[in-house]
């Protein structure tokens, strides 16, 4: 008998809240059922600054997605983003204890617990532990069990975040009567969505440029070695245009989307465009012309700054020799013209953008790569859910059966 579980992937972003409902059949097949998108309110750079407003738009998006999917949600996967997220790479090591120097399960457990034993500051909580390969006497081994050696080492990438920010996100979901089953950082989710296994094996950097934050994840040899979030996104470009060109927010957003280029393109930078104040497009007093060069310079400066910050954060990890598959740009702001060229030259990698689909197919658009990635991650890591294995009360089981 096939088992069907209905999951909702929720991303509470700076510009929008996206809820994607999918069902996983027998833990193998993912069917996307419906999507709900609402303009975000009360969220800034991944942090909830107005709980009621954030709850309102999130709950509305959930109802919209449920109506589109025609099902009620059982489980929620929540993405987490923002500058509060920090990743640490911790190494654990142990001496092989058996007399014949063969590695036992106990040795492996000791190395893992040593790697995970790093204490956190108060008000910080772990979100992920991503295991890296074992090393036995300095040589990499996929499974060290029963291999001969003296010293066993293992690396763990631990991602942790601010407890209060995470609590706020969870309580928004709890507010509509749903329980958060698993939490996945946005960068990891986007990586699961846009990079395939061969990319990860060759080494790939995935950068998800959202409105308020930019998340990145670096894979090497199939493992996540670095992840993080930068509090700069598409909104900063809009703000720069607004102040630089002295226009309102709507016009700045329109200019960014219509004329914005991340590179200073000499082929058309002398062209002028009209900045109109009439919402219906008519010419009125006060309307003026500006050169495209100004737009390009503003956008280029901010985009260049963004990738420079990422370059600084990646530091020694950014070695093109180990990142054979190059750079993949995703997220809503990756639609910006020429952004891949700036990223490529700044980070020294071959950069590509995720294919941009038509607006009629929101599932495959780069804006939604995080939510799609949440479901993909859940499908690929069925046992990693932190609360999925927890025992439920009798009423909890009953409500799950009756799909309350």
């Amino acid at each position, binding site marked *: 008998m096939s088992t069907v579980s209905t999951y909702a992937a929720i991303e509470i972003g700076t510009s929008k809240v996206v809820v994607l409902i999918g069902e996983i059949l027998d833990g193998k097949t993912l069917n996307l059922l419906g999507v709900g998108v609402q303009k975000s309110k009360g969220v800034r750079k991944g942090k909830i600054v107005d709980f009621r407003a954030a709850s309102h738009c999130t*709950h509305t998006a959930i*109802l919209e997605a449920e109506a589109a999917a025609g099902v009620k949600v059982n489980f929620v996967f929540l993405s987490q983003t923002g500058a509060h997220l920090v990743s640490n790479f911790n190494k654990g090591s142990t001496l092989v204890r058996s007399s014949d120097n063969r590695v036992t399960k106990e040795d492996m457990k000791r190395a893992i*617990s040593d790697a*995970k034993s*790093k*204490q956190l500051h108060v008000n910080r909580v772990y979100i992920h532990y991503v295991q890296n390969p074992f090393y036995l006497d300095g040589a990499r081994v996929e499974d060290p069990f029963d291999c001969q050696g003296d010293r066993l080492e293992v690396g763990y990438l631990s991602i942790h975040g601010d407890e209060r920010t995470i609590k706020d996100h969870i309580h928004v979901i709890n*507010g509509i*009567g749903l329980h958060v089953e698993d*939490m996945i950082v946005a960068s990891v989710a986007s990586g699961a969505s846009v990079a395939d296994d061969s990319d990860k094996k060759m080494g790939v950097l995935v950068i998800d440029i959202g409105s308020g934050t930019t998340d990145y994840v670096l894979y090497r040899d199939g493992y996540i070695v670095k992840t993080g979030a930068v509090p700069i996104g598409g909104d900063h470009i809009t703000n720069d245009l607004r102040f630089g060109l002295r226009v309102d927010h709507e016009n700045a957003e329109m200019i960014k989307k219509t004329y914005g280029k991340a590179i200073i393109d000499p082929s058309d930078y002398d062209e002028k465009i009209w900045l109109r104040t009439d919402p219906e497009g008519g010419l009125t007093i006060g309307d003026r012309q500006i050169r495209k060069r100004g737009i390009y310079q503003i956008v280029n400066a901010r985009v260049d700054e963004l990738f420079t910050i990422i370059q600084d954060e990646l530091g020694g990890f950014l070695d093109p020799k180990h990142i054979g598959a190059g750079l993949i740009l995703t997220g809503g702001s990756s639609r910006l013209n020429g952004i891949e060229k700036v990223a490529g030259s700044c980070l020294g990698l071959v950069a590509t953008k995720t294919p941009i689909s038509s607006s009629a197919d929101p599932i495959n658009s780069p804006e939604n790569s995080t939510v799609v990635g949440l479901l993909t991650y859940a499908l690929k890591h069925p046992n990693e859910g932190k609360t999925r294995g927890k025992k439920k009360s009798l009423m909890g089981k009953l409500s799950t059966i009756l799909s309350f």
Partner: protein
Amino acid sequence: MRRLNKVKEKHWSNIKQDVGRKPITFAAFRRKIFKSCKFGIILALIAGFFTFLVSGFYYVRGHPIDVNLSGPVEPIQSIRFHSDGVLSPEWLKNVHGIQRGASLMDVDIFSLKRKLESFGQVDQAEVQRHFPSTLKVTIKELEPVMRVRLSRGSGFQDLLIASEGQIFNGFDYPKSFLSKLPFLATDSLVKEGNQYQNIKEIQQIYPLIEHAKRNYSKIYSTWRVISYKNLAETDLGIGAFVYVRSSIVDKIIFRPLDYKVQMSRLSVALKTTIESGINYLGVVDLSLKNTAILELASR
């Protein structure tokens, strides 16, 4: 280990989630109302289902349903009668009282069985319905081994005695059969209601009759009256005697033990006396251990 536990506690999954809080948005309120309604409907359905079950149970208990498991039933066409004795279908016709045209299910077979077994001659009766239209009656009769004569005013009445001492009024027996049964001479008949109590001395006499009938039928055919006396009133057989009056011996005395030897001795004695030309004897006493005493007599 303690250190590791501390680290585990710092995982996001240990943050307490409160899904049952008061909704703060209209969407949450709507969803909660929907959930409550759904829960209420399901509870109502479950409650309704159980109410239906319980009320159905009480209704059925108060109004038992007749379930016909008998198949098609027709009026009784035939009554199959079988007896291991002398009773005939005509006797059954007089006894059963079944109305003409009655169906099988109209006959109370248990009542009929009791009625048949109340007839003294019937030891056991079995009544079966054979669908669609046959009633089967099987009778096991008592086997009479003796008879007892009672005086009734100016006349008399003969009753029959079965092997276990039951006394009954014989029905349908041929006279030739009855005339061969020896009489029991007794003064211990006790009447209980319309019936007599079983006669106990038959337990001492019956083995002798059975042995004589089977092995010495010629001698047995001459026996007319048999009686039993226990002078010592003990169960040991000392002082107890069985007396037989036959057509050729006035009194044959048996000890109620080891009839095989005594009958053999009687046979020899009678053979010897008949061969000697003596046709009638007064007493043959077989109750002594190793000898038989013969007393001659004339008719």
